[in-house]
């Protein structure tokens, strides 16, 4: 199905991408910001998988090696392989982010952007 | 439609009915956390079990059925366990039941 000229699997990821971008601009909470970055990653991944499934959505797994399949009913395997990599990169980076946030919370006792930045600019000011 | 399919559809229908009843029960007003947990656990366990059995009957004797039976066993063990752990955590963190009728939890 398409909305206007754009495929429905393209427009929804775009929407979620910008919803999470909006959230990043207005949110005060760092935990929420990290979640929203994960949302952003998820939307990009869904966009890619949508690309792979535009022409067909049978999984690219062949139980019977001899049977002849029509390639236009099978999902594109390349985006799937790439997105597996992207998902793992995403979780690795999120783990680092959460660790940093935890260390910052121990130091400054807050998880809001503005108070933490005020405390941190005093703390991390270059020597003068 | 063969007899096998009719039987499986009936059993799956029973499972869905269980879930429906359970959802209505979950949204009953003026019930506390433990009551809702009880209901939620029931619909998860019984409903899913029944639907799984229905699916197994529908597919007959195959590798797929074996997988479903494995899933049923795991659900039978794990679902009550999850409810148990949630209730235990709520109890330990000091949540008091507001049930007035009959036997409430003893502190």
């Amino acid at each position: 199905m398409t909305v206007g000229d754009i495929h429905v699997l393209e427009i929804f990821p775009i929407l979620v991408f910008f919803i999470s971008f909006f959230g990043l601009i207005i949110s005060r909470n760092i935990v929420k910001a990290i979640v929203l970055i994960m949302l952003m990653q998820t939307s990009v991944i869904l966009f890619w998988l949508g690309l792979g499934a535009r022409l067909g959505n049978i999984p690219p797994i062949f139980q019977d090696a001899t049977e002849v399949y029509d390639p236009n009913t099978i999902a594109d395997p390349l985006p799937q392989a790439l997105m597996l990599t992207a998902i793992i990169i995403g979780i690795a980076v999120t783990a680092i982010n959460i660790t940093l946030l935890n260390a910052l919370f121990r130091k400054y006792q807050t998880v809001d952007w503005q108070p933490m930045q005020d405390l941190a600019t005093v703390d991390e000011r270059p020597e003068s | 439609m063969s007899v096998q399919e009719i039987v499986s559809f009936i059993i799956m229908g029973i499972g869905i009915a269980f879930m429906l009843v359970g959802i209505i029960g979950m949204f009953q007003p003026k019930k506390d956390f433990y009551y809702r947990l009880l209901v939620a656990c029931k619909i998860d366990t019984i409903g899913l079990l029944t639907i799984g059995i229905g699916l197994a009957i529908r597919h007959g004797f195959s590798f797929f059925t074996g997988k479903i039976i494995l899933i049923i066993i795991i659900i039978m063990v794990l679902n009550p366990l999850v409810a148990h752990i949630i209730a235990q955590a709520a109890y330990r963190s000091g949540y008091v039941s507001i049930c007035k009728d009959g036997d409430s939890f003893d502190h």
Partner: protein
Amino acid sequence: MPPQMLTFFVIVPVLIAVFLYVFFTLKIARVIAIAVQAAFMVPAAWLLFATQESEIAVTVGDYEGFLGIILRADLLAAVFVCLTVFIFLVVGIYTVQTPYDRTKRLYLFLIFLLEGALIGLFLTRDFFNIFVLVEVSTVVVTILLMYDRERRNLFAGMTFLMVNIIVMQLYLFGLGYIYMLTGVMDMEAASAVLYTMDDRSLALPYALIMTSIASKCSLLPMLTWLPKVNSLTGSRFTIAAIMSGLHIKAGVYLFIRFQDVFGGMGTDFFLVIGIITAVAGVIMALSQTDVRLLLAYSTIAQVGLIITGLSLGDGYSRVGSLFHIVNHSLFKVALFLCASQITYLYHTKDIRKIRGALRQTPLIAAANIMAILGIIGAPLFNGSISKYFLMSGATGATEWIIILINLGTILAFVKYAAIFFGKPLGKVRTEGGDEPDFNRRAVVLGLGIICLALGIGGAQAMDFLFDAPVSLSFWSYLEKVGIFAASVAIGILIYRYAISKREFLPKLNGLSLSFQQICVSIGAFFAVLVIYIGVF
């Protein structure tokens, strides 16, 4: 050597990193690290000579067509690989005696990983592989920036990481569109298809990818460089040197590659952006009092200059910019390493409190002055050659703006050079007291002499490195020397009568913006770029 060896340029550093981390004690690990880094110069030099004739291309695993990942080494990639290996060797020799810390070999592990990831970035021509390698290098750099627990800047580091993740999501989105339009993941194959398309359908992928690349090379209207610079104050000088010397250059390298892929779209836009970056970088550098921040902002100014030169659309300017990338890496690393020694002796990183360094440490100060002469483009030094060719494509107003930017750089480094003269204000550590630092002096002096050598043999070096037979016209070079002398005179006068008396724009000192503002700047940059490409 067979072309399959190209894979091992990336695999070997990674393997060695893990081996050092797992198997060896610290003492042996140091020796092995230096030996490996020195030995690595041999294949790098081989790559440089082999690519003089033709490009080396290899598909990892010998799959046919574009099924596998294709690594390609042309002359430009070979130069960058050589530069990477050389700078890591220099930094390795410089830190060979540093008592690392409790976590022992973690430092060596990260350094080797960064080396492998950067070399991989220079050799690969696969869009998705670039994404993976950029993420790896970002994570490694994040750990390195916050390496010392006692003085790390956690908040700036976390903001740096988060902003970089967001920017890489934009890149991945743009990549999706490229895959949709071309159906391949290889740069050469994709650009062959992209050449046939009109600007409007390329506007979105171009804007998405270029926004992330521009953020990677710290262009200015995006504020993504702020947390990076701010976190430098909590890191070591060697890390700052690698960041300024190589990590930003990886961004510039990607910029060159992607401009080639898209066939030179948006050059006018990046010309303006480059000039803005250079001007603002110079102003920011002038307002700083911390040594590291002054040098870091000067890096941003020079990157702006390089982007300007690349976007002028002139063959000589392009080669000049490429040569300036190499030169800038060399003298910026030298500057950071010298600054490390001088601040160690003076117990302070504030340039207002350091005086009389020339008398205290003559050798290091001499190397430092050589590097400064390089960066401000003094005759006979490498900076002058590269800036000469960089400016040769500029005409009219652009030329004058570049001269003004150079004047600003001179001003910033006149301010910096004040540390060499006068009398020391506070207590000074006696040189060579606690630790033998022969290797440190040797390294910085060597870098200074290389700056001089590349200046004297500049035209030949450019011919060798970029396969561009250039000729230096004596009279126009003399004209540039005249402009340089005038700029230095004006710079010293302005410094003496305007800047040394009071603080210059004190509000810019220690500037830090919130995460939300940085996000808005990313969005705004994207919007302007997409409108520019799609509408005009």
